[in-house]
């Protein structure tokens, strides 16, 4: 009992500290510093309509490269942790019913199409590589739930993932050799609201979308696999 009170006081102190800090920032008041610069300069400098995408990929592209690396490390960690275990459980899952199977077969290509649309239009509409990749992985999750015997071909997924990551780094190095700084804009900006606009954002987001989709599908495959893990091979 006394322990819970001590912990409660501790939590209250943390919350009060954050609240006192937050009292400097009133809700709903304009307090932009660097955001002003981004909003004013996105269209002339990058040619993208979505300012969030331009901040993520253009002004802070190096951070996003780090984020992709974190995601890759997590997928690798999940795979390694599951190969360490013995994986002896072989329980039979319940067979899914007719409606789910047929419906999955109908819906699955549309889910992939929507995911591809979202990550290709990341610089024009809300969305981008991470959201589209997550949507694609959700499609594979649906496939796993409907058909028990599903197993993705891990070699091909690793290939797609590697190509996606390689696109990012190669575009960054192109900027380094042609313009003198890593991830500099080497492609023309194009006209606003065109699909082929936004400079390096379109190829980078396609790469990120493929990479995130295959990575999250690999994580799902690792979590779902019962015995298949051992025969699939684990080297990257």
């Amino acid at each position: 009992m006394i322990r819970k009170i001590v912990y409660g006081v501790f939590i209250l102190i943390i919350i009060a500290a954050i609240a006192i800090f937050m009292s400097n920032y009133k809700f709903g008041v304009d307090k932009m510093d660097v955001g002003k610069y981004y909003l004013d300069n996105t269209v002339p400098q990058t040619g993208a309509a979505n300012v969030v995408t331009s901040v993520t990929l253009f002004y802070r592209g190096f951070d996003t490269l780090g984020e992709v690396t974190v995601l890759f490390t997590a997928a690798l960690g999940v795979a390694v942790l599951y190969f360490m275990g013995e994986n002896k459980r072989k329980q039979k899952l319940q067979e899914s019913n007719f409606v789910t199977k047929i419906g999955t077969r109908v819906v699955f290509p549309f889910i992939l199409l929507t995911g591809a649309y979202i990550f290709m239009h990341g610089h024009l509409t809300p969305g981008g590589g991470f959201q589209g990749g997550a949507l694609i992985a959700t499609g594979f999750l649906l496939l796993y739930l409907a058909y028990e015997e599903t197993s993705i071909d891990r070699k091909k997924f690793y290939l797609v993932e590697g190509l996606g990551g390689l696109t990012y780094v190669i575009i960054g190095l192109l900027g380094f050799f042609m313009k003198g700084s890593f991830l500099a804009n080497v492609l023309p900006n194009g006209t606003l609201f065109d699909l082929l606009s936004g400079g390096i954002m379109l190829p980078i987001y396609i790469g990120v979308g493929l990479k995130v989709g295959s990575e999250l599908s690999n994580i799902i495959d690792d979590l779902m696999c019962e015995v298949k893990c051992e025969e699939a091979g684990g080297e990257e």
Partner: protein
Amino acid sequence: MIFYISALLIIGIGIYALIIKKNLIKIIIGLDLIETGINLLIVSIGYVNGKTAPIFSKDVMNASLMVDPVPQALTLTSIVIGASELALAAAFVVLLYRKYGTLDIRKIRSLRW
């Protein structure tokens, strides 16, 4: 204002679960709650009254009518990293269960405190 208060409340609930609960999955749920609360806090800092989303369209071409894009970009990063961290934590939980046969951290001897 209520956005700040509820974000702080969600963070508090998460810290409570992280400290008090003894079940490993409940602890991960606490971590996830803290992450959600902090995302809500950061996005609500960036909100400005009466302005729209930071996306140019044919109707909205005026940059002075948009909310701050920087917190949204940061939160985007945070959500993706949170999901991958959570997958890693779930893998650890499953492995610990295979080794010790329980989810109670008092019974997992090398984690006792």
